[in-house]
């Protein structure tokens, strides 16, 4: 799929300072509509901080985030999420004691309208809304491949299924962009390979743009159309996978100064 130049998400000159520590330093970054892009960098490079700025969890010290044509800097996280910017978490944050179905349905909260009154009296509208939500939840659980776990508690699911459930839950927001924070952490090579296919299906079947934070280089190189590299809070490189692979600054950031033989590892 070719990417258009229209950015669905545009972060301009983002800086985040915690006390004296500059976690993110003047980083600009765009996600073209319909693209799959990755954010990589060594541990502590500021990737997750940057993620948290995009989703409204942190206020940037300076800079702006434009999502779907609107400034969302400083907007409440729940509004950004219901506006169509969904995420998963590096350390899985499901609602463990709720069923898989309920987990997904929580994310439909902003698209539903039932209140105390209509829920207590089970109005026609409420029943229909609830039935549609359940149907959509099942569709999403099927999509991520855990359609049989509908009524199981999230905490009882296997690790891989929990990761899938996080994606299903994010998709329930009917997002335009999904941010996946280290989705292959803890996966074996076979699962990681399958994940590459899954990300492509995310785009083609659910119509979302995808931003990945990822450590598994083979996944990143296979799936990304563009890659941005952060190191110590700064953007050190940006480009296609092949450009990034051969970028001396990237190799240096990952592997230290004597990078020529190390570049084979990145390959």
């Amino acid at each position, binding site marked *: 799929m070719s990417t258009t130049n229209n950015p669905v998400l545009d972060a301009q000159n983002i800086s985040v300072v915690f006390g004296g520590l500059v976690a993110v330093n003047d980083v600009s970054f765009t996600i073209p509509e319909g693209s799959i892009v990755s954010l990589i960098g060594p541990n502590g490079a500021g990737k997750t901080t940057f993620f948290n700025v995009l*989703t409204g*969890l942190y206020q940037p010290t300076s800079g702006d985030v434009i999502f779907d044509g609107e400034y969302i800097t400083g907007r*409440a*996280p*729940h*509004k950004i*999420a*219901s506006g169509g910017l*969904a*995420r998963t*978490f590096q350390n899985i*944050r*499901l*609602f*463990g*004691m*709720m*069923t898989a179905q*309920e987990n997904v*349905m*929580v*994310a*439909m*909260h*902003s*698209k*539903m*309208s*039932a*209140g*105390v009154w209509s*829920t*207590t009296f*089970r109005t026609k509208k*409420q029943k229909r*809304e*609830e039935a549609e939500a359940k149907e959509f939840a099942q569709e999403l659980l099927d999509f991520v491949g855990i359609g049989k*776990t509908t*009524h*199981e*508690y999230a*905490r*009882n*699911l*296997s*690790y*891989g*299924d929990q990761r899938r459930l996080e994606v299903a*839950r*994010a998709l*329930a*927001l009917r997002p335009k962009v999904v941010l996946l924070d280290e989705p292959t952490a*803890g996966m074996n090579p076979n699962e990681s390979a399958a994940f590459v296919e899954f990300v492509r299906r995310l785009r083609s079947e659910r119509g979302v743009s995808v931003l990945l934070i990822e450590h598994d280089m083979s996944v990143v190189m296979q799936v990304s159309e563009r890659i941005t590299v952060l190191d110590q809070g700064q953007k050190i490189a940006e480009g296609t996978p092949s450009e990034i692979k051969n970028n001396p600054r990237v190799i240096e950031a990952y592997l230290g100064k004597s990078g020529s033989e190390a570049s084979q590892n990145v390959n």
Partner: protein
Amino acid sequence: MAEETKAAAPAHTSSSNTKWAIGFITVVLAIYAINKFYLPTAPVQVKTFFNSWFSLTSMGEIMIYILMALGLNIVVGYAGLLDLGYVAFWALGGYVAGWLMSGHFDQWTVNFFGNPPAGLPNGIHLNFLLVLVLGGVFTAIWGVIIGAPTLRLKSDYLALVTLGFGEIIPQVMVNGEDIGGFNLTNGTKGINPVDNIKLFGYEFGPFALADKFLIYAALAGLMIILSLRLRDGRLGRAWLAIREDELAASMMGVPLMRTKLASYAVGATAGGVGGVAFATLIGGVYAERFNFQVSIIILSMVVLGGMGNVWGVLVGATLLAWVNNTGLVQFGNIINSATGKNIDFPSFNFLIFGVLLILMMLFRREGFLPEARVRLIMHEEEFSEVAVVTDDIEVEGVHHHEHN
């Protein structure tokens, strides 16, 4: 995933709800029938037994406590917000009944389908059902007023602020007999009598206790339905999500403040309705009844019964309310007469509740009748043993990690 763990999953099955509902209705109707049809002609010993162990006043009180405990359960059990000042809503509801169903404001004479005592038309006398609604609305508004600034706080601070609120409102009531010359609450003397309930032409006076009991049971029943249905709807899911992981909930588009406020308002409404009902049960409103201990008792009902589970809270409320208003006195009498001592057992109620709560926290933290999901987390080791055998290594690792 293992079949064994699957069996523990669906918690709030509708079939068990039906069983419990039938049980509740049966018990209520049995109490009503015994008191209405059997006791008037029963032998004196039977009458005395029922009146001392299961008096209708105590049964009515239990129903009102069920209503209020379920209200607090929405705040504490569903949304996970610790509220130590719930008595304030009970007090506010009580005073709404005092203001709108008595001769207290004798400078005005209002009668809207009300039931003023014969020959005393002064004061505001509104219909009981209307006062129930107004009491609920009034306390809901107060819930929002109190909640809006405080629900931003983290849980410990929220507990402190609600604790203060629970102290302030009753104090205002105690001292409210002369607010710039206006007698709002009649101070420590309280407001009495509150009008008898009159519905559809029938009056339920002090001796129509069986019928009044049925009215209070109906209110409790409505609250049960409301609790169960909300739990399975959009709001209930959002509350549970907030209880589990506030940050993740907000990242899934749940507006935290609004959702918390909704739980607070629903809880407050139940407290207010309970306050109105209680004023009609005892025929008056007395400031000194609205003390901190009530907040703690109602909270204990929620915790003891099984936080979050409607039926558990119902059992907790029934047990504690009964022990508090009847059990301690009666067992105390038995022990006193057997030992020849003269111990004032009811004055030990908080010692007993305290010990009970400590024992619960040590041995059965999830309450008598927990939600299945709560039992799951509290007894995770038993469940994870099953999981470890059947799961892949990763999951074993996760469980192991959580134990540490």
